[in-house]
């Protein structure tokens, strides 16, 4: 548990907020795909909220989070003032594994699943293509571009980039790669799994599940994972994940 200071907490798009936390340890341990548990300090909403690490600035001890206000907890979070303290646990979980020998990386993000991919792209070696899908307002596009990545956008309403979903765009561009990294809503991940399997490209997928402890002790956040010995077992998204290999994941 760390008591960290909120340096910034402000709206960057409709219902989307950026929060910058100040903590040396947090920024130094924040690897791509890991998440933090934020404690709301509210008597009605007791459970911590898991939010992915979007980016770290180790020099200035900054950890950047991007979150959507979707319910009461994230609403409370959005009302926290700059300078306030926040109880944080983490970084938690197993992030993306980066194979430095790989040449062509393909990063696929969807909606509020986009943020954790930013720190990833920063650390990837080789050539990186970024495909992002949104319902309407894209976020973080400039941030990805600043890193020198080739960024392609799809929006469902066609307000920016390709009108439709990101898989269509990948197919349209006939993209190829050596390794895929993806985070986004379940239907998108499922489509990425299918597409990447067809293309025979290995993929790492970051999953989401409702959590309580966040550290592997309570077994509420499980997902079905293929095992060698048995047919499948429930693994913990918080501790064994959130990033899993595509071929481990069983879709329901």
């Amino acid at each position, binding site marked *: *548990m760390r008591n960290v200071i909120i340096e910034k907490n402000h709206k960057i798009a409709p219902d989307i907020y950026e929060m910058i936390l100040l903590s040396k340890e947090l920024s130094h341990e924040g690897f791509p795909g890991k998440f933090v548990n934020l404690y709301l300090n509210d008597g*009605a909403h*007791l*459970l911590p909220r898991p939010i992915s690490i979007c980016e770290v600035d180790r020099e200035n001890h900054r950890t950047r989070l991007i979150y959507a206000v979707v319910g009461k907890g994230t609403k409370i979070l959005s009302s926290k003032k700059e300078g306030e303290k926040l109880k944080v646990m983490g970084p938690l979980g197993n992030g993306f594994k980066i194979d430095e020998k790989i040449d062509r990386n393909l990063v696929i993000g969807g909606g509020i699943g986009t943020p954790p991919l930013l720190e990833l792209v920063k650390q990837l070696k080789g050539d990186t293509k970024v495909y992002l899908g949104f319902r309407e307002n894209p976020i973080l596009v400039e941030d990805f571009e600043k890193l020198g990545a080739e960024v392609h956008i799809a929006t469902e309403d066609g307000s920016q980039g390709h009108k439709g979903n990101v898989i269509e765009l990948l197919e349209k561009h006939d993209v190829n790669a050596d390794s895929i990294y993806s985070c986004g809503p379940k239907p998108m991940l499922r489509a990425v799994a299918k597409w990447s399997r067809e293309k025979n490209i290995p993929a790492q997928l970051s999953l989401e599940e409702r959590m309580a402890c966040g550290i592997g002790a*309570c*077994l*509420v*956040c499980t997902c079905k994972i293929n095992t060698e010995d048995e047919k499948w077992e429930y693994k913990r998204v918080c501790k064994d994940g959130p990033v899993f290999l595509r071929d481990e994941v069983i879709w329901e």
Partner: protein
Amino acid sequence: MKKSSLEVNIAGINLKNPVMTASGTFGSGREYGEFVDLNKLGAVVVKGVSPTPWKGNPTPRVAETHGGMLNSVGLQNPGVDAFIKNDIPFLRQYDTKIIVNVVGKTIEEYCQVAERLATEDIDMLELNISCPNVKEGGVAFGTDRNKVEEVTKAVKKYAKQPLIVKLSPNVTDIAEMAKAAVEGGADALSLINTLTGMAIDIHRKRPVLANVIGGLSGPAIKPIALRMVYQVAQAVDVPIIGMGGIMTGEDAIEFMLAGATGIAVGTGNFINPMATVEIIEYMEKYLTDHNIEDINEIINGLII
């Protein structure tokens, strides 16, 4: 004044303090071991252990509620053999007592686990006849006076360690269930397990939990748990381990005044991973402030 003693004795086992972890909320201690010095705890109560591996229920398995949470894990566990192999050696590295929560679908299954554990280096068994999240066994045994007695009696034959029976709060008369367990041979009682509850996603018009109904825990249920501990303490003479919504040292002292010899922290760990050690520190302070040398003096110390 010398430092107050926190030592308590439950069914012949000495605990360095009354503070334990509630089954199913602390794994086998490994994960929370990064936040809490396990050597400080009176006991670690591990998650429910069945004769063979259980997969548990589908997700979502958790729903947050006002001041509490619902879970429907359904006793996912790798089975008693894996538990013995992986978890006992890990926990034995620490200077704390090991209490194993025992689950089964039938009386025979409960007995199998107790028998398998008889020769193992653990300190107590906790018979879980109160899990609301499994179709067979669990709470089905815990809400019928005769079944409580029957399953306790059966397991008692195989148990080589003192036997705690964990009671369900989803009953009309908790004192009667407590008496039935004691008549069946329980050496101690623990209460409460979760209250059955539900939450609905009004926009999807669906239950939040895949399992529809789950078990309610956390500070929301504390007044009910405290009342039940008090009623059971009036009804039986065996030691009681009290739990249900304990978050702070103040909460823990309430349970001890109501009649608990030990207390356990469940959901509290999720909200504050340091809860157990902070409770121990508070107990020391409370005793000092109130000039009490031995924590046993406050057990059942409520003035009516």
